[in-house]
């Protein structure tokens, strides 16, 4: 029957139409969670280069100085900062703290996230 809860409805998790700010928080948290898990696995594999000795690791670092890689790294930092700050909000709410102010908490924390991302972006791209 249509309209029923089913696993195949999962794309609708990411549809913000007709939804409120809290859903944006949910969507951001879910996307950053999956992205960071993927990054974690890639990061661990890449660090295996360390075990191959100086030539392998330094060669790998030369590769990631490429601006495209740097942009990817900035996205990872963005995901980490957003997920972390949102997670702190959710943890506090689950202990009964700030539930009625969850919207303003979300706005303030995401503004802080934007500042952090801008700071790291500047450091990475301007200072090399």
């Amino acid at each position, binding site marked *: 029957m249509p309209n029923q809860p089913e696993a195949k409805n999962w794309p609708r998790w990411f549809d913000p139409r007709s939804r409120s700010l809290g859903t944006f928080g949910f969507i951001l948290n879910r996307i950053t969670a999956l992205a960071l898990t993927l990054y*974690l696995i890639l990061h661990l594999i890449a660090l295996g280069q360390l075990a191959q000795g100086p030539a392998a690791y330094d060669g790998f670092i030369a590769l990631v100085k490429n601006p495209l890689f740097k942009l990817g790294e900035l996205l990872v930092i963005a995901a980490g900062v957003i997920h972390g700050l949102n997670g702190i909000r959710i*943890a506090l709410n689950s202990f009964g703290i700030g539930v009625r102010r969850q919207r303003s908490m979300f706005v303030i924390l995401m503004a802080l996230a934007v500042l952090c991302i801008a700071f790291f972006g500047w450091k990475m791209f301007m200072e090399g």
Partner: protein
Amino acid sequence: MEGSLTPKRLEGSGRWLIKIIAGLFIVVFLGIHFVVNHLVAPGGLLTYADVVAYYQNPVIVVMEVAFLVVVITHAFLGVRSILLDLNPTAWVLRAANVLLVIVGAAAVIYGAWLALTIANVKI
């Protein structure tokens, strides 16, 4: 409760608490990891020699391995929670549990081995 055969609890306050506490540890460790890697170490840990020097300190080795443990715990409990949102069948969940435990344990063992290998490199 009459007539209620409550199905086995696949996720409860215990596992959720572990996920949240791991998350809070991540915030702390990641802060340290970030500050050292990108702000304290001159030029960041971007040469082999710098990484080896960093890992000579046993506190760092312990911290980085602890960091890996809490990250894997948080990430994999989170992924499992997302899977539970899809109401998987019992065998899919069982397979996922096994996969997550094996991959998680392998990642921790691999990471610890890597950290110790680097720590034991003769400068």
